[in-house]
């Protein structure tokens, strides 16, 4: 089950930009694409833990600022040939307000070989 939290307005995030929501499970990066869709991923690249929120958003993808891994915003999956996944969280946009769904249980990334 998700617990929904209101986190702000769409305009709080620049187009092709990102903001961070601090949660007890760690930081979550909220991305806004050029077509005004909003996605949320755990703010840790599955490669070496880079802060995805600091990367460059293009299409529905994010490039990690540390070593240029590219992840799909919708699935959190790394774009081939890289392999890895960042945990994704559901978002909702209602009347200009943004909502983020967080798990009640602590979520673990599916792969995080070098997370420490």
């Amino acid at each position, binding site marked *: 089950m998700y617990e929904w*939290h209101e*986190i702000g307005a769409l305009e*709080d*995030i*620049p187009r092709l930009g990102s903001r961070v929501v601090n949660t007890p499970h760690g930081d979550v990066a909220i991305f806004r694409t*050029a077509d005004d869709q909003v996605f949320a991923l755990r703010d840790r690249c599955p490669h070496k833990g880079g802060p995805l929120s*600091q990367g*460059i958003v293009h299409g529905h993808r994010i490039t990690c600022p540390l070593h240029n891994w590219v992840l799909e915003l919708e699935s959190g999956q790394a774009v081939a040939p890289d392999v890895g996944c960042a945990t994704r969280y559901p978002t909702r946009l209602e009347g200009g307000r943004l909502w983020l769904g967080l798990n009640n249980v602590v979520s673990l990334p599916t792969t995080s070989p070098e997370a420490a």
Partner: protein
Amino acid sequence: MKEKLVLVGNGMAGMRTLEELLAIAPDKFDITVFGAEPHGNYNRIMLSPVLAGEKTIDQIMINDLGWYAERGITLHTGQEVTHINRARRQVYAADGTMASYDRLLLATGSNPFMLPIPGNDLPGVIGFRDIKDVETMLTAAQTGKHAVVIGGGLLGLEAANGLMKQGMQVTVVHVLDTLMERQLDPVAADMLRASLEERGLRFLMGANTAAVLGEERVRAVRFKDGLEIPADLVVMAVGIRPNIELAKQAGIYCERGIVVNDTMQTYDPKVYAVGECVQHRGQCYGLVAPLWEQAKVCANHLARYGIGRYQGSVTSTKLKVTGIDLFSAGDFNGGSGCEEIVLRDPARGVYKKLVVKENRVQGAVLYGDTVDGTWYFQLLREGTDIGAFRETVLFGHAHMADSGREGFSVMTMADDAEICGCNGVCKGTIIKAISEKKLFTVDEVRAHTKASASCGSCTGLVEQILAATVGTFDKTPKEKALCKCTEHSHDQVRKTIREQHLTSLRAVFEFMEWKTPDGCHSCRPAINYYLISTWPGEAQDDQQSRFINERVHANIQKDGTYSVVPRMWGGLTNPKELRAIADVADKFQIPTVKVTGGQRIDLLGVKKEDLPKVWADLNAAGMVSGHAYGKSLRTVKTCVGSDWCRFGTQDSTGLGVKLEKMTWGSWTPHKFKMAVSGCPRNCAEATIKDFGVVCVDSGYELHVGGNGGIKIRGTDLLCKCATEEEVKEYCGAFMQLYREEGRYLERTAPWIERVGLSYVKSRIVEDEENRKALYARFLDSQKFAQVDPWAERASGQVDAHEFKSLRRVS
């Protein structure tokens, strides 16, 4: 409904086109493929190693039948297409199978040319073209003893070598006196022949074949002078002829090959052709590299991107005979106005020749040591001015102090030798990826293995491994596309921005028909730079297209914190600044304080949300951003100069401060470092900087294009001048020329190697008017650039969202 695409010819060119097409427009077409051979698609250039017993057929398959099925491609193997009805847009195979098309792609390849002599159709007389020929040869080798290969070209020699390895006695018959005359000059050809004779091949040079003799099957070959030699197998490798029968029958205009335009379309625009069957601008190609380039252009056009033109290829060749290193490219015979640079060492069996015209490489022949083949080929394609290193060019790239090469062939290295130091990738890993994943380009190797994906200094080694493993040289186009979002090169993008007066990323994407809606992490920062450097004060600086460091004006560290480097003009500081730095470090609990190589102080481990407060405190003490994070002017390093030093000839510190005050804040294609030394002892290390000044008693020596870092390069002397004012003018003009013409992420060192020092001199030293104009443009753009980004952000007025989290959820 999807459009229908029919491909005739299941060879390398056609399939490569499909692969390129599927990569960019996977759902556009229903695809049907006809192949005359009964297999999936295989790497034809690797047939020679198969014949020599070094590889198996399975190892050279590129796509098995499952590959076609997975992609929903209908594949008819073993079916030769015999007829095209263009009016109805249908093709028919020999057995009556019909397929209709909206777009047709002909990739029918070529046929070996069989000499028109009596007996050329006897059993045992074959060409060397496909798996069937290889099988015939392997069978013949088991029963027969004598083989005759007619043709001393690339293919003939590879066939002869393979048959010899299979235990046959092989005689190579060549009509001319030198082998491989289209690739080699007489010296290299003789060395090659001697080496092959040593291995056991026999040669009959200047021999005219009159007839193949035999009743049931081939028995002997007779020459015009009456000589007869026994033969159980005759391989004709005298050339190839584009296979144009089908196209001709369908009324498509052909000359030697199927004539195509720059988008690979035949005279019927619904019909495309690629590969060895085509004739483009009067040229037919029988090598693999041009096919790759054609495939890419053709796929783009089929996908309706409409961009990208094929403009012909410069080709290079490599003989695939194990143990013999031979490379040739371009025009190696020279002509009027050409000079030859030759190195010949018979004892080592090494011969190298470069043909040079006006200091640009026109052609190369290498025998015995081909390590630098790719490098010479690159110099050739890019038209690099080799004036600066002409004396040592034949000693190879290793001599250019490239850390990636150490003067040996990479293939002599062990499999566990580390090739890519940044990402820890070994040679064996790269070879495995190339063969298992069927990689053909350096980009693909980079994507799959990460080798050469970081600093890039091992790219040359990776190219060598690729070349040796795949058996062909890379297919890097003459001008590389900026990134995968476009076919346009850096230079084309910048030219268009200038000519069309484009001032926003959106305008560039629309005008240049970008393939992606908003670019990627490679092209956006590049275009943003081209925009703001071309139209200062006019183009919008797009923060979301800046790498994080330039967006938040600090350097991101591996743990997500940042480092902060305040500017210290010319490396000078004072107690007040040092106290402020110490106070900031205490107040914000900054864990590491370090002195940098550029004479600045680095505060490492600052939390992102603290950045504006740290900057406010530093601003209060009079310090501004040091731009240690940017593709911009970094630092001006100085020595103490005539104020204190007993050797100092000029006020190097003062000049350094003046240069830094003039140039700070300017954005450049890559980072830009300067130094001023007060005497030729050069304590500020000015001769490894992008722009370095060495003071002498009579004035100032100006040095450019130096580089520490990955690939160390000493500067070139630009000129000498007499006054500080002149130094400033030359400095501004040089920076502006680099800002206007250097490609994004190209440092001054490779830029100068690309365009040549003489070009830079001609624009700055010899053309006073142009120098003054460049300097004026530089100063003009500085009016918009010299705003302290820290002060703007410390005030909370700019980009406040960057430094605050959106919400804290508990």
